[in-house]
């Protein structure tokens, strides 16, 4: 509907006026015939995105570059609010049957639309256009596959990254970041400053559930050999490995070297914490605002070695669109994740390039040389793996786990009972998902 209105405005020739006059009187009787609706031979599609500020400009820029690069498809970009708001609006739009053709959906949202057959399977289009799927960064590509069918194409992808204040680490005799949690724990008391009972400077800081502590802790669990769950939604919050990882978090606050501030990034920028785990998405802003030398490194390793997850958002095409629109949308999606598209996007936003050939390209290599911290993030990308189903596919899974972690880091509760109750809730909430998957397969 939205697109039809705008098209009509263009046809009227007085876009400004038509836009200002509410479209009450023009009922569907006046809708232009199908032939007229397509100006020229271009297929017009609508794209719902979620970015603001500099990222929003880049998103608009990407759409504009696509529109200028060919003359078959014209994309209209429409900003819809945060990831959360975009998913909410898409839900409402589905109920009202007024959906866009293609939408940005974050890691925790796309699955819900998949379960309801709201987003289109893309395998046919992928083979029709001979897309070289092996060129996509594996962990990112795999995440959008269900039962061998591709639904979700990586776009604005990020990963956790270890940030540290180089000056503070130098003070305690460390030139580089700690390789393991044990190393960090060993120097943590030296990095910490106290004024009575108040920690005025912490060695490390944990975010709140609302700031996605469960996303970051997922990596720590992997580093300890555990998982939130397997692919079949068997919840594994109470395995010894997961508990051991929880104990590390609990020790960090009980021993008094980690804090739980309102905003971890702000604390880091103000020198109130010497290190943190945070999204690669914040890198550019942190480098811009920091008054000290910012170091970045791979996440610390645990007893089971390295572990790092992916995050961010990807593109999905709506299932209720005619083939012609879906194909047009697919062309846009392919442009956005093409080696050129992703390289441009990555340089302008700080998100990860999603194509191996883009990472290897001269252009990106030159960019890495200028931005060594960004290179760390991209180097780490190759070692990432897709997230656990319990966090991304169980509705609210992220917040349920996050709350359990808040109990450990804020109220310093014992790990086992906290995770036991998380386990119980997750098992309960997984049931409808499993039923839906069952229904989808039959």
């Amino acid at each position, binding site marked *: 509907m939205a697109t039809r209105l705008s098209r009509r405005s263009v046809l009227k020739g007085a876009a400004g006026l038509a836009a200002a006059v509410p479209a009450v009187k023009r009922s569907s009787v006046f809708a232009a015939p199908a032939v007229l609706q397509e100006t020229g031979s271009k297929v017009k599609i609508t794209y719902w995105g979620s970015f603001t500020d500099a990222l929003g400009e880049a998103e608009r820029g990407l759409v504009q570059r696509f529109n200028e690069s060919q003359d078959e498809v014209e994309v209209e970009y429409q900003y819809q609010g945060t990831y959360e708001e975009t998913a909410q609006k898409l839900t409402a739009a589905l*109920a009202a049957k007024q959906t866009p053709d293609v939408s940005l959906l974050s890691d925790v949202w796309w699955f*819900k*639309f998949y379960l*309801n057959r709201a987003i289109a399977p893309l395998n046919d289009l992928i083979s029709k256009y001979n897309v070289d799927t092996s060129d996509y960064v594996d962990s990112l590509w795999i995440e959008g596959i269900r039962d061998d069918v591709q639904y979700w194409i990586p776009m604005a992808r990020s990963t956790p990254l270890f940030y540290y204040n180089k000056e503070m680490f130098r003070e305690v005799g460390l030139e580089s970041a700690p390789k393991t949690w044990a190393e960090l724990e060993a120097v943590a008391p030296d990095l910490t400053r106290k004024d009575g009972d*108040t920690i005025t400077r912490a060695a490390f800081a944990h975010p*709140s559930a*609302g700031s996605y502590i469960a996303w970051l802790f997922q990596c720590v669990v992997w580093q300890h050999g555990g998982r939130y769950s397997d692919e079949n939604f068997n919840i594994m919050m109470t395995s010894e490995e997961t508990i051991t990882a929880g104990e590390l978090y609990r020790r960090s606050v009980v021993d008094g070297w980690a804090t739980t501030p309102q905003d971890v990034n702000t604390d880091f920028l103000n020198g109130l914490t010497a290190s943190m785990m945070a999204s690669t998405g914040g890198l550019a802003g942190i480098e811009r605002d920091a008054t000290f030398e910012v170091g970045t490194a791979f996440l610390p390793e645990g007893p089971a070695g390295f572990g790092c997850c992916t995050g961010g958002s990807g593109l999905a095409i709506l299932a209720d669109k005619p083939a012609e629109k879906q194909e047009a949308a697919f062309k846009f999606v392919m442009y956005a994740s093409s080696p050129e598209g992703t390289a441009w996007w990555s340089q302008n936003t700080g998100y990860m390039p999603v194509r191996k050939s883009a990472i290897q390209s001269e252009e990106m290599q030159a960019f890495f040389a200028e931005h060594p911290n960004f290179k760390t993030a991209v180097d780490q990308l190759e070692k990432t793996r897709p997230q656990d189903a319990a966090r991304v596919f169980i509705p609210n899974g992220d917040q349920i786990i996050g709350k359990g972690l808040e109990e450990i880091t804020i*109220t310093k509760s014992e790990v086992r009972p906290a995770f036991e109750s998380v386990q119980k809730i997750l098992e309960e909430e997984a049931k409808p998902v499993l039923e*839906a998957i069952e229904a989808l397969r039959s």
Partner: protein
Amino acid sequence: MLGEEMQSGSTVPLVAGERAGATVRGATRAKPRKWPLREWLLFLLFIGPNVILFGIFSYWPMIYSAYLSTRRWDMISPVKVDVGLDNYRYLLSDDTFQKVLWNSLYFAVGAVGGSLILGLAAALLLNQRLRGRDGARAVIFMPTLLSGAAIGIVWAYIFDPRYGLLRTVLNVFRIPSPDWLGDPTWAMPAVIIVYIWKNVGFTTVIYLAGLQAIPRDLYEAARVDGAGPFWRFRSVTLPMLSPITFFLVVTSILSSFQAFDIINVMTRGGPVDATNNLIYYVYQQGFVAFNAGRAAAASIVLFVAMLIVTLLQLRYSERRVHYG
């Protein structure tokens, strides 16, 4: 909460007129009954648009919610599974929900009490002929105009236990600053403080309008009778303000039960559910977990709770309210 004072105030003979019941007065007194039917039609004509719009955009969604509260639905699927009263049973047995109920009550008492008492005090003050009063009036109303993220960031800065403004103030009195927003014990008081800061201008403005409507001669008469300022406040101001106070108590309780923005911006219901109230729970279940049935059940609980509180107030408080 000002009920007692209202009651004692309205017995003072300075105040003319009767103690009215809830609604009936006016036309019936002077006019002979001529055309009740015509008056009924006019009544319907006047109140119709308001009620019809509510019917479409408020009552219908609520009725729909009542229906959804017996279903399991993810807000997309064409199938809404009938689960009977399971959603209500879930809420009753859910520890989080019990905490949420308690939080809503805690928040309502703190927020309503604070903004009414401070609002009345500020209105009385700003009604005096004092220099700089217009400026103070503008300042106190400003937070009401502000919305969203900017409030969150400024108060996070104020509350920070290590470098916040409040810590500096508390230091002067040698009181250690709690970790306001990070500590489950202090997060709720902190959110209430911000809510009062944001809304006190609102109650002040309404009280100010109410004060304007009090005829000056009542004060003159009280003065002639030798009443001091405190007694004039009890015998004239409070009873004359009682309709407004009643209005503010009812609407403030209702809006505090639905306080969403400040919690969403400042704590997102945390830490560990310390500030998770009913409306935030409805939002979380509905728009984050996409569990429409549970969200609907919680919203029905919220609605019934507010309805009971309001009916009790209409029944027991409005009798004490003094009209004209």
